[in-house]
């Protein structure tokens, strides 16, 4: 007999939109279940800059999105301030950039109501000494950086604390349809392979790039376009501000500070399928060469990781994916003959709250519930479980925690054993299975220059030693984790990075012989 879970709303997809919707619905008093086939932010939510746009980037191509961004960034700064770093942003142009665009910029900003400030070239270089000497124009705007993992974790935590249920590693397999309605969702737990069913009044498809596949299960076709974007993470933070290239939005023109690193991106490459994407050497080289025009240091600095995300876009025809609106797409599938099914896809990290709000409004409408959105007024509470996803800023009281016998397990990002324990606890509380990957989502483990060479073994040993893991899957776990890291590493290996990856290989292949393990 298969288990059946009953709920009001089922949210499919644990990205920033999905978790945002879950929280919004909970605040409106709904009973919510969220399923995710992997773990939080496994898709585009985890594969982006972590940039909150001021909107200035879209003033020419998409003025509407620009206005949205401008209002959302204000709300988020107020409501989720602890996930946001108020870095400020710069738009800079270098010799050779389109002068007409530079000239139009102030006017377009004014029209969209986006605050900006012209900065002299000398002042800009004083603000950010890494900028190229070829600078010809600079404007200051209100960009900010956000920790996308933290915002998802916090959203989900808040939702769970308000009664929502979060089921990770649960993949939707099919819908049971009856009379223009979805009556049940068939779900399988990816870890233990057990199937179960979820019965809901409304089903929300917030699976981002996978929205087309989910809709397919309800016999609905969404013309999805997959645009792969690749980003590079430097080993240390190069600039304090978000630095945008002042030109028509194109490749590798944004450098975002993310805690102690900087993130350079991105590219736009049409791919056929959102799964199994990874950065390639050619992309990496291209990004670096482009970025170096704006910030010469990018040509020589060290990168610790590259990663790719897939932008979920709904096709409107045309070839260049950048012309496809970055605005979100909300589809009530009533028009397609399924009454209780809504798809929300597309959009941007910056507007995730707005997307959740609009989606939930539609849910209320459909279910005839009169509840207003509250994410605009109720701040997102900060919890401890999001704490260790903060990039590398060592946490206070180092001495005390050392005196208490705590050991640092991840040296690069200084994550102590106690943090790992508390992360494991919170995963267990969500009925998840703690493993290296899920710990890595919730902390900075494996994200430093060693890319898991040491911390993987240390954390695994720690879990065994403390009995938090006790089966024979240890070696497989280790291999899986390292291979996941490897995806983002192999295209960046030269200079010091190749030294460190060689040492990693020395340990895990040379000494442990893990490649021989089946």
């Amino acid at each position, binding site marked *: 007999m298969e288990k059946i879970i009953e709920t009001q709303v089922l949210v499919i997809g644990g990205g920033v939109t999905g978790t945002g919707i879950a929280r919004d619905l909970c605040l409106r008093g709904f009973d919510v279940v969220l399923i995710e086939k992997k773990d939080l932010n496994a898709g585009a939510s985890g594969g982006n800059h972590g940039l909150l746009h001021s909107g200035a980037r879209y003033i020419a191509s998409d003025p509407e999105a620009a206005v949205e961004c401008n209002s959302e960034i204000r709300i988020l700064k107020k409501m989720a301030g602890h996930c946001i770093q108020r870095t400020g942003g710069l738009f800079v142009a270098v010799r050779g950039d389109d002068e007409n665009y530079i000239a139009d910029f102030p006017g377009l900003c004014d029209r969209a109501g986006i605050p900006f400030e012209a900065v002299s070239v000398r002042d800009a270089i004083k603000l950010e000494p890494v900028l190229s000497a070829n600078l010809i124009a600079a404007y200051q705007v209100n960009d900010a950086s956000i920790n996308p993992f933290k915002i998802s974790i916090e959203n989900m935590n808040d939702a769970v604390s308000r009664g929502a249920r979060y089921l990770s590693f649960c993949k939707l397999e099919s819908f049971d349809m009856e009379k223009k309605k979805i009556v049940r969702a068939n779900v399988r737990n990816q870890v233990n392979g057990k199937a179960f069913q979820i019965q809901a009044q409304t089903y929300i498809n917030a699976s981002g790039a996978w929205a087309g596949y989910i809709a397919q299960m309800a016999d609905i076709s969404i013309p999805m376009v997959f645009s792969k974007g690749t980003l590079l993470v430097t080993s240390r933070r190069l600039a304090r501000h978000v630095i945008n290239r002042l030109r028509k939005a194109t490749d590798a023109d944004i450098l975002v500070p993310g805690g102690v690193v900087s993130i350079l991106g991105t590219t736009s490459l049409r791919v056929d399928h959102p799964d199994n994407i990874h950065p390639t050497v050619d992309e990496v080289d291209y990004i670096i060469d482009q970025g170096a025009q704006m910030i010469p240091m990018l040509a020589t600095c060290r990168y610790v990781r590259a990663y790719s995300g897939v932008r979920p876009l709904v096709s409107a025809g045309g070839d260049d994916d950048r012309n496809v609106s970055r605005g979100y797409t909300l589809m009530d599938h009533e028009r397609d003959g399924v009454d209780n099914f809504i798809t929300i896809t597309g959009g941007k990290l910056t507007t995730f709250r707005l997307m959740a709000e609009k989606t939930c409004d539609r849910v209320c409408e459909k279910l005839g519930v009169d509840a207003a959105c509250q994410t605009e007024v109720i701040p997102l509470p900060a919890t401890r479980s999001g704490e260790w996803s903060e990039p590398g800023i060592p946490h206070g009281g180092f001495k005390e925690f050392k005196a208490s016998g705590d*050991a640092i397990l991840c040296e690069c990002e200084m994550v102590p054993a106690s943090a790992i324990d508390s992360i494991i606890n919170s995963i267990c509380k969500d009925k998840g299975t703690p493993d290296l990957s899920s710990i890595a989502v919730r902390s900075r483990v494996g994200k430093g220059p060693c890319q898991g060479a040491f911390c993987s*073994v240390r954390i695994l040993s720690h879990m065994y030693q403390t009995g938090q893991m006790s089966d024979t899957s240890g070696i497989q776990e280790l291999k899986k984790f390292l291979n996941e890291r490897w995806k983002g590493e*192999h295209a960046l290996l*030269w200079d010091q990075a190749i030294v460190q990856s*060689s040492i990693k290989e020395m340990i895990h292949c040379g*000494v*442990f*012989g893990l490649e*021989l393990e089946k």
Partner: protein
Amino acid sequence: MNLKNNATISCDLLVIGSGIAGMVAAARAASLGLDTVLTGSSSGFFLTSGLLDFLGVYPVESSQVLESPFNGLDQLRKQNPDHPYSKIDNKTILESLDFTARILSSGGLEYSSAKNTNVNILTSAGTFKPSFLVPQTMIKGSSIGSGKKKILLADFKGLKGYSAALIAQALKRRHMDVTTVTIQVPQLTGDFNVMRMAALFEDDAFLHRTAKQIESSVQDREILGLPAVCGIHNSQDSMKKLENLTGLDCFEIPGLPPSIPGLRLKNAFETHILKNKVRVFNNVKVAFTAFENEQILFTTDGEPFRTQIAAKGVILASGRFPGRGLAAHREVIRETVFDIPVYHPQQRSLWYQLDFFSPQGHPVNRAGILTDSDFRPVDKTCQPLCENVYAAGSILAHNDWTRLKSGAGVSCVSAFCAVNHFHARKKIK
């Protein structure tokens, strides 16, 4: 080694690199009566396991673990004529490994092998690694491979990156009879380091206390596995004492760096070569300046105490990327001392496989320096670059040692042979 400002020293042989290859080369040169200078940093030993592999896996594509390295050697030579082993006969290989074991013994560290067969050593990841020359403190562990022994695994509370439970679970997968015990170390609290742990093993009181803690877990156990931290300077004695105290056979399990067995190896090599009057420039980088009158001239860094070194021959044992013998740039891989052309996959996209644990290994790991049959680096026309420049160790091309499990073997053998060749050539003159 006190040297005056801008001094010039001359020597028969300059060994660049203080890894296994460099150490063996220096020791061999000293044993042949050559006036030898050794440069480079020996701290890379901390990153090694302390095991001296010879050839553990071949062919790599099929992950064939070799019972005896000689089983795979012929096939390797046939399929890969550029591999360093293809340039040496079996007798010389054994001779050089024997030589290595002897110099380590003279440095106070015993290594042994199991009669021309590989020894499978349990690692702290719970895997078995085929190796050849094995430190005395680990050799007993090879007996558990049969699966008949009743094993007790111990770990120390607070020792990071090592868990008896993890290894035990991996062994259980192989249907072995294994139990675990965790030893408390009151002297060490919090985040302590391996060296401290290892130093404790030289203290008899600590050994007694440890044995006492294990006592109740001994029961029917036959063999005790410990992390490889049992003493720095006198590991064999510490081990013996512990065996007497517990009544169990003991063996060490190598694991994450910093590695104590590696440190012992470093100490043993250094003791031997310093005893044999090799002049050591520790942690000093040399820059090649010129070939002149059959001598090869170098300068060390550190103005104005810069030292000129004039050598009649050079062994280039500067290692790969971690040893800074090779430097990878975005487009190209370079050799750092002479800028010898490096054999490597042309495009960077071909350097690495998508799977980190790909059995055939990453093509970039076969990159390196091509040599003639005497281990002299060759240029594009396959002519030796210089009469008396030799290359040895991991810098040699076509040797993916992490997959082949051939790291130390290639280092010992190529260094040994390169010095022999140099010596022979010098005598003829």
